């Protein structure tokens, strides 16, 4: 049902663009299957469909970024036979989620400086690592940066390999992005770029808001805003259920 509706929307936008006369060249129009993600108790990740039209662009790139976060990346080394955290680096301003989708490999679409300027592609993502924390160890900051990307990708939060975008007759395109269940809440941004002969011709931004709803949201809110009450509630639930269990099984 929902998919049928999306398909109709998709077709409708196609006709609007196809029969539009004298429209300014390369103008992008983009829609998302949803711009509001709700994390409820049954949440197990979500696939968002992004589709749009362009007027004769050669290539489309979509970059999706989650809200910024700060990470402490720790490195283990062997201490007295066991592996213990011995070094750490604070990496600020990394997006919580990062994915790229493109019609072709990124380096074939445009040149390095354009990609770098727009932080397109994981290697062009700027992360700030404080210089003063440089230690005598031979670990370089690039190692930490690579470790961050690797660990985030293992969590499903960074998509290292660009996803595929289908561009039909240089007019219609769509792509699907999977968000894992451990995605964080906040505002995500989808940045859509259209290229013609390697030059950036148009760009458009779409926002996606991700929030917790229902029982889970209330539990989380209570735990963080009224943590003393939450603690008492947790104990009360435990005592009550332990007591009830004892009564039930006494009669069995």
């Amino acid at each position, binding site marked *: 049902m929902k998919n049928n509706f999306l398909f109709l929307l998709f077709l409708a936008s196609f006709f609007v663009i196809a029969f539009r006369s004298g429209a300014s060249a390369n103008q992008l129009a983009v829609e998302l299957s949803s711009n509001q993600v709700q*994390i*409820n*108790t*049954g*949440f*197990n*990740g979500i696939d968002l469909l992004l589709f749009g039209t362009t007027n004769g662009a050669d290539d489309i790139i979509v970059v999706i970024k989650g809200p910024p*976060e*700060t*990470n*402490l*990346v*720790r*490195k*283990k080394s062997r201490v007295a*036979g*066991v*592996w*213990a*955290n011995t070094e*750490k680096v*604070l990496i*600020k301003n990394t997006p919580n989620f990062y994915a790229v989708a493109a019609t072709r490999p990124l380096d074939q679409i445009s040149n390095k400086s354009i990609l770098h300027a727009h932080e397109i592609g994981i290697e062009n993502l700027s992360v700030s690592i404080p210089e003063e924390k440089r230690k005598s160890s031979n670990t370089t900051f690039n190692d*930490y940066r690579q*470790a*961050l990307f*690797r*660990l985030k990708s*293992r*969590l499903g939060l960074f998509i290292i390999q660009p996803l595929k975008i289908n561009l039909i007759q240089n007019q219609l395109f769509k792509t699907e992005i999977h968000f894992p*269940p*451990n995605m*964080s809440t906040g505002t995500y941004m989808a940045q859509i770029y259209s290229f013609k002969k390697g030059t950036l011709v148009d760009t458009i931004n779409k926002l996606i808001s991700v929030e*917790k709803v229902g*029982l*889970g*949201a209330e*539990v*989380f809110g209570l*735990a*963080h805003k009224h*943590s*003393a009450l*939450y*603690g*008492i*509630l*947790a*104990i009360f*639930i*435990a*005592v009550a*259920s*332990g*007591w009830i*269990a*004892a009564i039930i*099984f*006494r009669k*069995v």
Partner: protein
Amino acid sequence: MHIYLPIAEMSVNIFLILAMGGGVGFLSGLFGVGGGFLMTPLLIFIGVPAPVAVGTEANQIVASSVSGVLAHWRRGNVDFKMGGVLLMGGFAGSSAGVALFKYLQFIGQIDLVIKLCFVIFLGIIGALMFWESIRTIIRSRNPASRRSKLHQHNWLHGLPLKVRFRKSKLYISAILPFSIGAVVGVLSAIMGVGGGFIMIPAMIYLLGMPTSIVIGTSLFQIIFVTANVTFLQAVTVQTVDILLAVLLLAGAVVGAQFGSKYSVRMKGEQLRALLATMVLGVCVKIVFDLVVIPVDLYSLTPVLGG
């Protein structure tokens, strides 16, 4: 079927959690132990962040101890006076333990310390229990061997602040149970366990309490110590996941009933040998994880408010 855990911030299979609760509940019913020493490592193995595993497991132990203590209470097997002194120590110890937990988390060594604590205590208790049960099994085949005294008097009985514990038939210094309570309290906060596996041997061998009231009294004080840990973890680090605790609990309650029915069919020393083997097994697994080269030398900790 998946369920999203609001505090652990992950999606888990609801049946996996129920099965884990049931399995550990079965073992705890079978052996008469809390099961925290198995559940906390298991939760960490399936990807629950270590602090959430510890905080949530403390919450679950409150429930299983309440349900366990009622049966012992009805039979009059709880020494409330002794339990009171133990839990005063437990309050002090677990409060200090939660503060220590927070500090260790800050300096990035909490995972290591949790694992080292498990290795040390599971190793010692497992080895002692194993040795003890093997000796009993051998002795039962050779009935001519001598029996040891009920309990020995040593320097510990010379400490001041002596109190009479009528139910335990003891006249000993209150400092002793207080200190035991405090030490177990610290471990309870750091390891997310009730601490029965340390408390019970300490009560029997150090205090010389009669074995009949040891389990009930231990459960009685575990309720309050784990409740204190739950409360303090909820307030200081917000790592108690009520939803996860309720799921584990539902499985554990059912599992424990089957376990306790099954335990009647087995001999005490055989049970102890089996439990000792399992304790040592968990211990070896953790040692292995600590010593073998990790999958990734790097690890990630999101910084809140960063």
